[in-house]
């Protein structure tokens, strides 16, 4: 679980200071605090457990090597996720891995997003069960890296728009637009699934 309270934040500053003095034990505390979240983000970004394990290790090693350059202007969490995001994008580009991407992303991120009204589902009445979650996971897997990263950082990591904008280096308006499109993509998949259930 990521650190939240001010006491935890002070503790985190101590770990960062010790890590800057090349103390792997102190850095291990940072790993303890963030490994699950970073790993979850990376696994969903790359879609492979094995790759996610490699990349998550790379994230923490890179962070340990460059923690001297961490200036504290952003939070440690934002900084770690920025490293994770960049490594995931690099890995995706290198491997030229393109999942069968449903073309939900507009040609320009600022294009008009569309609403997806559908009478087949009522948000209030949808029961979240394991099968539905599998549909959601599959939908996350089939969207573009750009949409997926924003969706995961906002809806799973609970970062605000400004933090996400800094993490992935795009304007806040683009973050909002991508988040809307990412959710709309999932909504369409969920609607299809619920529609099949009604037949």
């Amino acid at each position, binding site marked *: 679980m990521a650190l939240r309270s001010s006491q935890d934040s002070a503790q985190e500053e101590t770990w960062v200071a010790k890590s800057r003095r*090349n*103390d*792997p034990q102190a*850095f*291990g505390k940072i*790993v303890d605090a963030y*490994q*699950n979240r970073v*790993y*979850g983000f990376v*696994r969903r970004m790359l879609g492979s457990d094995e790759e*996610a*394990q490699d990349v*998550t*290790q790379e994230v*923490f*090693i890179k962070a*340990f*090597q460059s923690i001297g350059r961490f200036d504290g202007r952003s939070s440690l969490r934002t900084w770690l996720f920025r490293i994770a995001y960049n490594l995931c994008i690099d890995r995706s580009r290198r491997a030229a891995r393109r999942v069968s991407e449903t073309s939900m992303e507009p040609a320009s991120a*600022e294009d*008009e*997003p569309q*609403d*997806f009204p559908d009478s087949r589902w009522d*948000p*209030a009445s*949808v029961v*979240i069960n394991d099968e*539905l*979650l599998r549909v*959601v*996971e599959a939908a*996350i897997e089939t969207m573009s890296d750009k949409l997926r990263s924003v*969706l*995961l950082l*906002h*809806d*799973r990591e609970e970062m605000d728009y400004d933090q996400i904008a800094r993490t992935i280096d795009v304007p806040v*308006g*683009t973050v*909002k*637009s991508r*988040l*809307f499109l990412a*959710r*709309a993509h*999932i*909504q369409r998949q*969920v609607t299809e699934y619920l529609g099949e259930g009604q037949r």
Partner: protein
Amino acid sequence: MTDKNPNAMDERLNSPEQEAIRRMVQAAPGDMPSMAWRAELNSKLQRHAKQARSRLVFSWASAAVTVGAGALLLMVMFKDEPSNLDQSQPQTIARAGVEELMISAHFDAVETNSIDPAWPAN
């Protein structure tokens, strides 16, 4: 729409449909890397810390050698200067010696000339 009316986008993002999707994404199970993964990461971190320490020691040693070499060079340079000064003294002494030799040669010549030519006979 996004830039012209940002509030409209906020409203869309807060719609019941979008909120329902947010809850679903949040409800997806979390991930946890294995203990073996963590052990491997720990050993990599230890190795990197050791390498960083070695680099630090090496850079300090390099700096010490550089400073030592610089100090030695300065010592050699300052040691040369007094010896240069010393070299001027023998030259002075040498000049003085030549003068004395010339004077004594002159006196010898005068004395030789003032000797009675008949001296061997006397």
